[in-house]
């Protein structure tokens, strides 16, 4: 609190400077760089910045004309011309398209347009997850078999030359068969 009184002089100086510049903001002649032809040179007007206000106008213009108006036009078109959908029972032997499960006309149009390109259907997503569950289950079962085999080989010590080729990648049946034949060929040539 004793420090506030020491700010009195600087604030007075600042206020004086500010007020002087406002009073003279109309006609202040600068030095040479702004001299043009014809006798009346450009004046440099000292005034507060208009940057934020100009930028606000610019961004509002951008977002409204390119965002709000096109999307509002699209939404009004969909709702006025098509309207919300009506609920009915699925007819016999008919599999509806993914966009026929939706009520809102805007989302219907978007899903129908981007059907397999950007948006995948519920059934496709479901089958994909079921496949990953099955695949991870198979991998884990293979690991368990491998560890069981190793454990039994260590306990019983009765197998001499049996080695289990672990299938740790997405190898197909054909590849494993070819590898087996290759090893058989090597054994025969020995």
């Amino acid at each position, binding site marked *: 609190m004793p420090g506030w009184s020491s700010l009195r002089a600087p604030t007075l100086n600042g206020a004086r400077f500010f007020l002087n510049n406002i009073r003279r903001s109309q006609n202040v002649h600068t030095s040479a760089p702004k001299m043009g032809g014809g006798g009346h040179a450009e004046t440099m007007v000292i005034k507060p910045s208009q940057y934020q206000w100009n930028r606000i106008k610019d961004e509002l213009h951008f977002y409204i004309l390119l965002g709000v108006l096109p999307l509002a036009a699209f939404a009004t078109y969909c709702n*006025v*011309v098509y309207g919300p959908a*009506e*609920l009915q029972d699925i007819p016999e032997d008919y599999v509806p398209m993914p966009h026929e499960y939706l009520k809102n006309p805007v989302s*219907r149009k978007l899903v129908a347009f981007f059907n397999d390109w950007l948006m995948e259907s519920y059934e496709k997503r479901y089958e994909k997850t*079921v496949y990953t569950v099955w695949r991870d*289950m198979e991998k884990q079962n293979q690991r368990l078999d491998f560890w069981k085999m190793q454990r039994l080989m260590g306990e019983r010590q009765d197998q001499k030359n049996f080695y289990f080729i672990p299938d740790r990648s997405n190898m197909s049946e054909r590849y494993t068969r070819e590898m087996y034949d290759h090893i058989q060929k090597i054994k025969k040539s020995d």
Partner: protein
Amino acid sequence: MAADDDRPDQINTNLLPSAQFNKLERVANTFRETFVLPFRQTPRPVYYHRKFARVPTIDQCDISDEVCKYEATEQHERDKKVDMFKIKILRKRLTHCNWYWGANKYEKCQTEREQYQDSAVNYHLRYGELGRTSELYEYYMKQKHRMIWLRRRQEAGDATAAYTD
């Protein structure tokens, strides 16, 4: 019931009676009839509800069959949501009845109240007190523990303790 019975009504029961009837709806309806309905295409779009086939439940799955368990969990979540919506509809009926009758609600809304309370109790018996991140086997074990508890009470002499679905 109408197809959209689970959605809230347009009338807000907290507004004054004069504000509920027709003023804004008349303006909106005239706007709709003049500017929207004449431009509608006649083959109206149609939407369907998704049909899910029944799959084996958790008690019919092998202990190491992950695919069966996954499908059973999906089915269980759907059934739980269906039960939630049923209770919502019954609760909405009760609140509408209460609002309508006002001071007479304790005499006039007995059936709605009984239906709602019975269904809430049954929902709690089946799905309650388990938490949001519970897995399917926890609901299965809850059913098992409930059957054991009821059987023990029955053996101890309580005749009303019978297991019902």
